[in-house]
């Protein structure tokens, strides 16, 4: 038996693959997230895949372990200075979010290495021994980040010896990240030290409660056993699961270019799959801080089911960024929310069935939604119907703006893509977005409401190790030695990437190590940026070795369905009200023309007028332009 659990803020999604595929949503237990996981966990689990927000939440809520920061003398403040930018361009009162670190806990030590790795000054052991004792007394763990430690780690390793001897645990920057840029590497190391104990404790609890060591989904879309995981690699565990699933669906259907579109209660996540592969980046951000960790490249828009519609002081209808969240939630939840939200509009447009929301688990109150919408429509001087469609259309235009941007950034046009829609609200909005972007096809996978958990099942085991080199490409001999050091002496495939750039650029491209590297780099650069410079010197920024152990995902189960006699209801479209066929996905056998609504257990699929749908293999639904 294969179990996948994805912990979210409101629900914990669980998928069990045995003979068939079963999925549930369990209310999350945010105070003790392990509780919901253990409660719903089946017996006889052979393999347990886990998407977790434990590190993310512990950081955002500042609930990690007190940590000290050790760096070179004269650079004690580098984590406070950061990149010296302010977060908002037009705000006269500049506010910068603090890291979980006080300046008393920052220590500069004697000792210095230059950019080539040459030691200029030695460290002072006696001084460090004194520091170690005082850290022990204050019960601090330590993050150590020294300049150029990716070139020469001797000082960091020596410091580790001294600290450990005094009983102080520490994270070393050359082990946590080993990439250049002292601020980013320093923050990454600090977070590793700060979150390590919390994450360790959580996994221990999970393992004791379930009896299985989970394979954890990382922000990169790869899996790694909980005992080996670095907390900094898990910040986007859940969303990465959805994109990993997107890659799987892309391969399964032979559709190379996909935009994954995951719309939930508070926001919408989007990412691109190009030529069948996920787009990733070497560095991301968490709560406004950089993390040097491989991440799937995901863009988030503040538009979800809970986004609130309001009139601004210029009389214009706006959606978000404020969200009703899960509590009190949209007005129609009947939990005290009074402001109209996107979900209220979807309900009153007839797209959502009040008795079949989340498979019937939450009963929706049409009257509450009406009151909320009515209030705003009076204020705005719009009819109820105009406002309902208006809310949906404005949410769509916010999301399509972002979708356009992520494709243009990659040098592509959105019309070259299909949309893979999931999340509770994704399949409702996707066809409208496709319409706006000139896209002809929307794909809805099985179990769209819990697709991130499903996607995690398709992941491979991956460990990534990298190191900054900053060497010219034509002096490549040196690097073979370094690659050998990074290779994992274990079964599995190894993928080696070189991070390359034209000398003088500050960002690099990751190119797989194969054949004539200069040529490959020029080609990649031209593809992504529109030009190549054959005369410029190429620099190797870093080398990255990925050790991949393929897992055998048994695949989506075949489904047999009895066929469905559709009922009907009236839905509101931009062109006016129309009678819609209503299907239940679990019975669905054949396609039909829109307008239609397909009820799924945790989601609803909308087929607008002028669109049609078909059921392809494994029960995947394609909504296509007629």
């Amino acid at each position: 038996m294969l179990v996948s659990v994805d912990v979210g803020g409101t629900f914990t999604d669980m998928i069990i693959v045995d003979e068939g595929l079963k999925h549930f949503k369990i209310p999350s237990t945010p105070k003790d997230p392990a509780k919901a996981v253990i409660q719903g966990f089946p017996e006889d689990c052979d393999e347990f895949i886990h998407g977790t927000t434990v590190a993310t939440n512990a950081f955002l809520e500042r609930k990690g372990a007190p940590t000290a920061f050790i760096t070179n003398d004269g650079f004690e403040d580098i984590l406070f200075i950061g990149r010296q930018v302010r977060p908002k361009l037009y705000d006269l009162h500049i506010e910068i979010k603090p890291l979980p670190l006080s300046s008393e806990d920052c220590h500069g030590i004697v000792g210095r290495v230059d950019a080539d790795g040459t030691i200029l000054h030695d460290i002072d052991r006696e001084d460090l021994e004194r520091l170690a004792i005082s850290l022990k007394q204050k019960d601090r763990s330590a993050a150590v980040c020294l300049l150029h430690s990716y070139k020469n780690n001797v000082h960091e390793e020596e410091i580790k010896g001294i600290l450990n001897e005094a009983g102080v645990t520490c994270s070393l920057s050359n082990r946590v990240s080993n990439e250049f840029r002292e601020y980013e590497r320093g923050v990454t190391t600090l977070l590793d030290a700060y979150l390590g104990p919390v994450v360790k404790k959580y996994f221990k609890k999970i393992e004791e409660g379930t009896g299985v060591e989970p394979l954890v989904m990382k922000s990169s879309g790869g899996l790694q056993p909980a005992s080996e995981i670095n907390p900094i690699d898990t910040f986007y565990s859940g969303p990465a699961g959805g994109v990993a699933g997107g890659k799987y669906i892309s391969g399964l259907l032979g559709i190379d270019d996909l935009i994954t579109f995951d719309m939930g209660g508070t926001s919408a996540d989007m990412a691109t799959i190009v030529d069948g592969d996920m787009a990733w980046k070497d560095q991301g951000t968490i709560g406004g801080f950089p993390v040097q960790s491989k991440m799937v490249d995901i863009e988030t828009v503040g538009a979800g089911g809970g986004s609130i519609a309001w009139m601004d002081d210029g009389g214009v209808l706006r959606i978000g960024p404020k969200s009703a969240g899960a509590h009190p939630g949209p007005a129609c939840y009947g939990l005290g929310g009074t402001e109209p939200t996107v979900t209220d509009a979807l309900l009153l447009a007839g797209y959502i069935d009040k008795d079949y929301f989340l498979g019937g688990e939450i009963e929706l109150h049409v009257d509450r939604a009406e009151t909320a919408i009515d209030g705003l429509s009076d204020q705005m001087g719009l009819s109820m119907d105009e406002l309902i469609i208006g809310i949906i259309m404005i949410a769509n235009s916010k999301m399509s703006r972002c979708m356009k941007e992520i494709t243009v950034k990659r040098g592509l046009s959105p019309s070259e893509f299909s949309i893979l829609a999931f999340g509770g609200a994704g399949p409702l909005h996707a066809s409208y977005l496709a319409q706006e972007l000139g896209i002809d096809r929307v794909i809805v996978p099985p179990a769209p409401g819990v697709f991130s958990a499903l996607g995690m099942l398709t992941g491979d085991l991956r460990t990534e190790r990298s190191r900054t080199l900053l060497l010219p490409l034509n002096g490549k001999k040196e690097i073979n030695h370094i690659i050998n050091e990074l290779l994992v002496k274990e079964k599995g495939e190894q993928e080696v990437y070189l991070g390359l750039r034209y000398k003088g650029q500050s960002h690099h491209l990751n190119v797989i190590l194969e054949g004539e590297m200069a040529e490959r780099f020029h080609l990649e650069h031209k593809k992504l940026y529109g030009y190549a410079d054959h005369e410029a010197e190429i620099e190797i920024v870093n080398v990255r070795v990925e050790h991949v152990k393929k897992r055998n995902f048994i695949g989506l189960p075949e489904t047999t369905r009895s066929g469905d006699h559709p009922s009907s209801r009236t839905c509101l479209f931009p062109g006016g009200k129309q009678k819609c066929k209503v299907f239940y996905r679990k019975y669905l056998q054949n396609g039909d023309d829109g307008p239609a609504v397909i009820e799924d257990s945790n989601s609803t699929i909308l087929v607008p007028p002028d669109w049609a749908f078909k059921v392809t293999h494994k029960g995947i639904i394609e909504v296509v332009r007629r």
Partner: protein
Amino acid sequence: MNPVVFEVLRHSVEGIPERMGAALQRSAFSANIKERKDESCALFSAGCEMVAQAEHIPVHLGAMPSALDAIISSCQLSPGDQVMMNDPYKGGTHLPDITVAKPVFFDEDLLGYVVNRAHHADIGGSTPGSMPGDSFRLEEEGIVISPTHIIKNGEFCEETFDLLSSARNTKERKGDLRAQIGANELGARELSEVIDKFGLHEYLDFIDSSLIYSEERTRNTIDRIEDGTYSAVSFMEWDEEVKLCLRTTVKDDTIYFDFDGTSEQVEGNINAPLPVTLSAVYYVVRCLIPEDIPMNQGVYQPIKVSAPEGTLLNPEYPAAVSAGNVETSQRVVELILDALRAALPEKLPAQSQGTMNNLIIGNERFTYYETIGGGSGASSLGDGASGVHVHMTNTLNTPIESIEHEYPLRVNCYKLRKNSGGGGLFKGGDGIVREIEVLEDAHLSIQSERRIEGPRGFNGGGDGTAGSNLLFIDSKETDLGGHVSMDIKRGWRVRIETPGGGGWGSVEI
């Protein structure tokens, strides 16, 4: 206009300059454009009103409209044409910023313009980077280009490009220009798509409504400021006395900025062309209005600016301008805040560092250019921030590990300048200390302000500490002053200490 259609169109239209910017950054060569994002893209109406703009640096706010005005008044534009310019005396700001504009037609009719500007790595000035520290005349700062066709009937004009032949790395210049041209093509295409989808009538209706909407909301904000005239005077830190004067008058929902009394332009590079002065004014207003107001010409309508010709803030040819953009602009912002503080004591912070601390070290082999953050002023909302860029810039620093890898430089220290922020109920932010040792002989230029008088506190708060630029030869220390241009030798150390911000409110006993 229907408020739903308005908002849907707003997202469609505002997205256009954003994506032009994404395309420009993607395809440009210069690090300034790619990494520091020193570029802006905008969409204008047929009547030259700015409809939407995506900028990353406030100094571009007023510059784009001025540049387009200059282009239209001197060039005939047909479909398939694009025009470029950089002349600070015809709507530009400083020479490395090149603006490229393209008209957009619908059938036969002019629909508007797409425009972008980008900071090129070099424009042929007397020093690499084309921002010399000691220029007297504009020509020393590089090639001056009046509005000229770079694309005529869809063809690239090589003879126009030849104007740039004395710039360093012309191949890169061509690449950057091509990227700018491509970004405009994308913008024009996308604008046509919007018209196809929503119809011409709806689009024109949107422009009108959008400008009125932004104007009304801006006027509402100004209306809430108490009527009156608010004045301020300050002095640039220069060899001779250079005075900045401002009388701001708020009358109902209009605000007037009159810089009469400001000193005449100087023989040096701190002159700020009018578009730079406008940008500083627009920046302050932008900070005062709600952040969700779409940035378009409507916001500028209630703002009236007058700066006498031939003065520091509206100089005439051939005055040099390279530090006007980066230093004088900061001081103008502080001057405006000084004046308005009496009207908005709860909203405005005490003085911030008011400089960008421009540091250039280089020789024939390398050019290292950096601006350094400092302290921001405290306000009624709390302490100022330490070690940040304020006002007209917000560019990233260069990591120490990159500096030491790429240049013959060693950084001895990079830390906050403790207790440099002014005291008070809320403390001003601290400045930064950065000390660099040169490992080769090189030339040093520094453009900085607030080296004599520190940023002032407000409402009883203490003053921030003034910055200093120090040179160490062995153990001998020399104070270099605010504006520096000199040769330095291997082993010498340059130490920049940036100003702390002013404090706010007195500490109760």
